């Protein structure tokens, strides 16, 4: 049975396979001892939680781990973000952050350089869910601020 025929198109745009895959089998999830920076964020409206830990050496993110609970959008966003952060310089992470935010504002081009994360571009069409996708990125933003 094809999903395209049985469900509204918009849902398929939101819940791409990649997203559900990261939700069910999150990457880079777990604790990170002795992180360079750690940020806990909590969305009081919906109860979603993200704890992001980064190990930074010489301006490069060596390890990125997250823990948390929440919906498929918030958790898959954290999983994909953490996966891609490893090996990136802080400047590159900053660029990723900017691109992701633009993608959430509806700029589809911004997502092209974001790898798997482009799967989250559909979230822009669901304004109430944008904050779910952004939670992990807000944790990244605060981490980068603390590292400055």
């Amino acid at each position, binding site marked *: 049975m094809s999903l395209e025929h049985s*469900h509204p198109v918009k849902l398929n745009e*939101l819940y791409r396979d990649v997203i559900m895959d990261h939700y069910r089998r999150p990457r880079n999830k777990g604790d990170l001892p002795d992180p360079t920076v750690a940020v806990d964020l909590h969305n009081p409206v919906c109860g979603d939680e993200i704890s992001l830990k980064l190990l930074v050496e010489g301006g490069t993110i060596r390890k990125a781990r997250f823990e948390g609970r929440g919906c498929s*959008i918030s958790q898959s966003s954290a999983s994909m973000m953490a996966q891609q952060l490893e090996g990136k310089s802080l400047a590159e992470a900053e660029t990723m952050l900017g691109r992701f935010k633009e993608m959430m504002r509806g700029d589809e081009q911004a997502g092209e350089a974001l790898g798997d994360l482009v799967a989250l571009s559909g979230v822009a069409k669901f304004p109430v869910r944008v904050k779910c996708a952004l939670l992990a990125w807000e944790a990244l933003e605060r981490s980068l601020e603390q590292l400055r």
Partner: protein
Amino acid sequence: MIDARAIRRDFPIFEQAMNGRPLVYLDSAATAQKPRPVIEAVRRFYEEYNANVHRAIHALGERATESYEEARRKVARFIHAPGPETIVFTKNATEAINLVAYSWARNNLRPGDEIALTPIEHHSNLVPWQLAARAVGARLRFFELAPDGEIRADRIDEVIGEKTRLVAVTQASNTLGTLVPVESIVAAARRRGALVLVDGAQSVPHMPVDVQALDCDFLAFSGHKMGGPTGIGVLYGRREVLESMEPFLGGGDMISSVRLDGAEWNELPYKFEAGTPPIAEAIGLGAAVDYLSALGMDNIRAHEQRLAQYALERLGALPGVTVYGPRERAGLVTFNVDGIHPHDLATVLDQEGIAIRAGHHCAQPVMDWLGVPAAARASFWVYNTEEDVDRLVAGLKTAKEFFGHVVGA
């Protein structure tokens, strides 16, 4: 009997399609839709007699004042209050509760005194007491829950003791649907000389509430959850208690005379209504009360009870669905579907034109007690039908299928 299909036609919001389908609104516990007479009453006020109240020496002002005070009388009759002077208009239930927390609790509680609550209060009947307790050095105590979410009536006396000065309890829980045994709680509080505040936000819109029969000292509720406008709430207070209390907010309308070095307070209820009140909103609430009275609160309760039982049955029969709360309940069901976060569920249902609530329902301690970060909730009111429950069940099946496929793909 409630003819929900006919009632639906009184609510203009249902004239629109939602994502191409008739709207199924299952979020009335958050805020209820508005029947035409309420919208009309507000429109008429603004178009025909908009003026300030209690101040103007002109015909418009007189009519505005009369309608505002008529709304107060309607509300008083609706909850069987002894008189309109016991009805204080506030912004919402939250403000009504805070009024008591500031004007009564902070001036009457001493260090070591206790406030008794249920562990299933909405944040708005919990946080004000945490703040007040911290300010005066009082302590919060909590009634015990049975495994199904009922309040253990046999343990009430263990919580209400010598030191208890106030008991603040919801009459109906917005998460578990628990109907709190307010009568037993009031009786226990009376034996100890404690006051009782009842949070009626989830009871007044859904069942007959009689403050004199309940014998409570305060009752707080919100207009917007009973078909009235937002921005209007009610605090009922026992006359002697209200009279003994200091004002909450200072300003115009709440004084009888002011000198530069002091002021005398106005009589009840104006002592507690500083500044220009929500006039149109109060008049709209009056119209909502008329609308509900015509339907009959007993009928509304029976209708919701039927829907809740039907929903329990249908949801209970779905594999992977966990329903929380006791069997005998208010008109709502809170639940989770295995493997689907409630936000994701709400998004899928929204695509089907079904509005439910997902999250922690402003009752995080309840979520902790359930051991879940969040839950989905379907809540019912006068315009909901069994067909709405069927649509919900179909929507849940769609969601399970959708997520199953996506995961399996």
